[in-house]
């Protein structure tokens, strides 16, 4: 039996395995280095895809370390679909179990943040509502209203200051000193996703809205958790990020 694509695939991903024996050059000699062209292409192209997906992770770990780690990652977790835009979904779990980085427990959440940025970038378009509609609605109607949130909005909560770490690496702000938790939303006002730091209670509020709860219910939940919850800032971030796409008042669901 001649070797098939199973043997070819295994040899591609495992440089310690011999080349499939049906691969030859023009003179009938073993393919040798010619097979390595494919080995290199696969690992290099997948590593490049990870560099594109995780620029902040790469900065934090350094190019060399990231490259070596990517080499391990791509062999353990080759893509499962040709949709390379979402490659690397296993990165947070991989980092959690990767001993050389166990001193940096915030890295898996940084990876989650970067994955969410890409999901936001490719998410469906949605037209925002006019903010005046919210501003002019009588209070009782606003409390009963349900808001639709744009598909490009992503919410992340972390035990680590991931927004501050991301900003430090991306915009050159100082790295955070205290390891306190942060929550953020990613909004896409037009085409470019941007993380926004949420005030305390903001994540509870946004999550309730996303779950389809009425504005008043979401507000209750947030103020129960955080009595001085800053609604104005949270709502301001949603509006500025074009993240509210519909408001249903009255009986409408």
């Amino acid at each position, binding site marked *: 039996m001649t070797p098939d694509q199973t043997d*070819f*695939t295994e040899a591609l991903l495992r440089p310690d395995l011999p080349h499939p024996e049906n691969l030859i050059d*023009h003179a009938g000699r073993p393919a040798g280095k*010619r097979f390595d062209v*494919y080995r290199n292409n696969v690992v290099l192209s997948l590593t490049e895809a990870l560099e594109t997906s995780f620029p902040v992770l790469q900065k934090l770990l350094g190019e060399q370390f990231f490259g070596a780690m990517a080499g391990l990652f791509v062999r353990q977790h080759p893509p499962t*679909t*040709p949709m390379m*835009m979402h490659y690397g979904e296993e990165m947070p779990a991989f980092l959690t179990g990767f001993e050389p980085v166990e001193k940096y427990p915030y890295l898996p959440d940084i990876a989650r943040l970067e994955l969410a940025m890409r999901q936001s970038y490719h998410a469906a378009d949605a037209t925002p509502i006019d903010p005046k509609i919210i501003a002019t609605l009588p209070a009782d109607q606003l409390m009963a209203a349900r808001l639709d949130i744009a598909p490009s909005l992503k919410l992340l909560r972390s035990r680590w200051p991931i927004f501050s770490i991301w900003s430090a690496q991306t915009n050159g702000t100082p790295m955070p000193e205290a390891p306190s938790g942060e929550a953020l939303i990613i909004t896409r006002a037009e085409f470019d996703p941007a993380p926004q730091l949420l005030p305390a209670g903001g994540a509870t509020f946004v999550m309730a809205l996303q779950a389809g709860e009425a504005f008043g219910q979401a507000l209750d939940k947030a103020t129960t958790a955080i009595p001085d919850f800053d609604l104005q800032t949270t709502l301001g971030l949603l509006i500025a990020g074009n993240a509210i796409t519909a408001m249903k008042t009255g009986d409408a669901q």
Partner: protein
Amino acid sequence: MFDQSFEQLPKGCGVGYKPQHFADIMEGAGAVSWFEIHAENYMGDGGRPLAQLRHLAERYAMSVHGVGLSIGGEGDLDQDHLNRLKHLVGWLNPASFSEHLAWSTHETHFLNDLLPLPYNDKTVQRVSSHISQVQETVGRQMLLENPSNYLAFSDSDMSEIDFLKEVAKRSGCGLLLDVNNVFVSATNQKMNAVEYIDAFPLDLVGEIHLGGHDEDVDDHGDPLLIDSHDQPVVNQIWSLFAHTILRGGKKPVLIERDGNIPPWDELEGEAAQALDIMTNVKAAA
């Protein structure tokens, strides 16, 4: 079998679309009359990629070039991926749709490279039936592109050209002739590129690719060219292209550049050069 009434690509020069060139292109694309996209980059739900694509398609003829369908794969085609392709081709309604003679998916692994196939009857059958399935799902004819070969298979028993002809006959697909791939394969396998072009069924060719390659050597010091798409088109490729046009007449031709992307003007310059060759060589027909 499938609708043949779709708009055709112009017999002029196209360029592989890169988002960094969007603003330049919107000011006028010069010698360039159509654009090719990699299907997989436009399978998201929205955002900038699709917005740019809609703008582009309003002004120019489009070609959808798949890089992930794994036509030569031993397993079944990925039905989800096929549906995504059908959706893209459905709304964009491009003038051309093409894929590669290669495989890239094995079981649940997508390997993100165009991997080689042995040329024999077993592979002809598999590739032909996969192409038929694609054409039926997408609802239109597909062009199949000749690969860049770095190695050969001991279980091949037919030439690449006979293989492509047989697949085209059985599936009804057209062919995409990548002249750079011909040059790379011919050099790597010590064959004659001009003879390859002379034997190629140019009447089945709906599109030509021109691109650049890297140079290396194998274990024995023999030249090993690598299809990298990250260099300008070199002189040997231009002459081979002129020879192709002389034999087969004008065709839609693409400048294919995927890495080390130069400023727009440089690609437009290569497109102008291709157009110049095409208008000035005397067509045989």
